[in-house]
């Protein structure tokens, strides 16, 4: 379970980017994070993948209070979180294979297992012929798929994706959302930040809406009711 309790975030001495954010994400839930540009989606994602410490409030993750945890224990929590960054953040000197293998190597998974899992996943995301390619030789869509593969390779407990389908064709976008749904069915909690209303409507998961640093969250039961009413 992920719980934010009256969380606020400001950069330096500037105004609060996020104010009084409180929500609970149950294990295995799937949410779309939406909101206008500059609403604080990326900042909220940063708090969720422990890229920043909140300036106030409490963050609970997987039974731990993040604010009070010693710094060196946070690495284990981060290993349970997969992140697809908006700008992909691939390591340019490493092949697609090595980029995807990185989280497994950090977890000291045996090389034979890494080889099997990474090749399988790259094949699945349509990059089976590009395992040795350096990221800067891949198209934007291909790089995004490598980034997604890197985020899901460890089957994280929480997957956060910032505009994961932004550079993808509709078909591949839908295919990747299907992959996310499969992961969700296996127990991964998902939060996907997106502007793509078409995608949100198609998959119909509840929304977390950020506006001017304030968050409102669509209840799972309201989403379920809509689904049953055939809105989606």
């Amino acid at each position, binding site marked *: 379970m992920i719980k934010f309790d009256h969380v606020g975030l400001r950069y330096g001495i500037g105004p609060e980017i996020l104010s009084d954010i409180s929500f609970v994400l149950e294990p295995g839930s799937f949410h779309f994070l939406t909101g206008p540009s500059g609403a604080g989606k990326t900042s909220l994602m940063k708090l969720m993948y422990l890229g*920043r410490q909140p300036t106030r409030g409490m963050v609970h993750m997987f039974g731990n209070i993040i604010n009070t945890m010693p710094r060196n224990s946070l*690495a*284990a929590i*981060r290993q349970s979180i997969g*992140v697809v960054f908006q700008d992909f953040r691939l390591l340019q000197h*490493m092949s697609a294979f*090595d980029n995807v293998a990185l989280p497994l190597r*950090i977890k000291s998974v045996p090389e034979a297992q890494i080889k099997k899992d990474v090749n399988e996943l790259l094949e699945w995301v349509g990059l089976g012929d590009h395992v*040795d*390619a350096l990221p800067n030789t891949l198209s934007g869509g291909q790089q995004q798929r490598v980034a997604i593969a890197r985020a899901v390779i460890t089957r994280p407990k929480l997957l956060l994706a910032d505009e994961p389908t932004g550079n993808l064709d509709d078909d591949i976008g839908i295919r990747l959302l299907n992959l996310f749904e499969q992961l969700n069915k296996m127990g991964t909690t998902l939060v996907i930040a997106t502007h793509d209303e078409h995608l949100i409507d198609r998959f119909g998961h509840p929304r977390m809406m950020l506006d001017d640093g304030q968050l409102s969250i669509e209840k799972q039961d309201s989403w379920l009711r809509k689904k049953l009413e055939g809105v989606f």
Partner: protein
Amino acid sequence: MAKKPPKPSKKENRAKEPMIGKAKGTRRFDIALENVQGSGFLALLIGLMSFLVILALSASFALSAMSDRWSSGLENKMTIEIPAEDLNGAPRSRENITRLTGDITAAFDNMPQVKSYKVLSEEDISELVKPWLGENLPLQDIPLPGLISVETHNNDAANIQALERRLKNISGNIRLDTHQNWLSHLLRFTQTLQLVTFLISLVVGVTTIIAIIGAVKARMSVLHDEIELLHLIGATDNYIASQFQRYSFFISLKGSLIGTLVSAIILSLIGLLFSEMSVNLLPNFKLTMNHIVIIGFVPIVISLCAMITARRTVIHALTQLP
């Protein structure tokens, strides 16, 4: 016979062309440490530092060997000098010197602490003074002192005082030179030189550590995004530091091995030059097996220091990340 496979067409060849930007070889580091400029410079700097440390170490070994040689050659040895002038400043005749020499050697018979002695002949004394007075001087016209080289069983103060008392009884101005005075000066001088070589090594070591800290910090700054990414996907500080420490170890090992090789060549040349000079006072630059083993450890010690320095620098800097 197996049929030769058909030659691929131009189209097939194009399809199988190596991909531009394909990753080559084995991944060595998760962070692009080798792509940052300045690795060669760092290796060169460490090479130079290793070179200086090895030269300083070798100088220290040579000075130590020279001190040992001087000390061991004069252990329990002393020289009795019967001055060429008597107590009143009048020249002593050769007969007088010979008589006094006889008195002294006769006294040795009753002194069990005297192990052996040798009365230096005029030829021996001439040989000794030749370097200062030249070869062609008529030595027979110059008043020469009488010299007796004595070896005792024990050179302690009581023995020396007893011997001095006996000599004073024979003649008031007979001098006993235990060599301690000039030897202690000489040994203090070599010890000072050894201290200087130690300080040079220390300065070189500190400079190397500062250079490595600077290089690591510069790389951390250039590669900040990659380090942050590793951090965000769950790499521990140890994992990230291990990348830098491995890199620093290999760069330092490469540099210091080159430095060691160059210094070995230079030392061999110095050793060769010194051996040809055959001047006994100069230090001997021939290294023993022990010295070679110690020098052989220099690249390893430098590389380990670089590794530890890199690790501590990275671990310290990573505390800035959340």
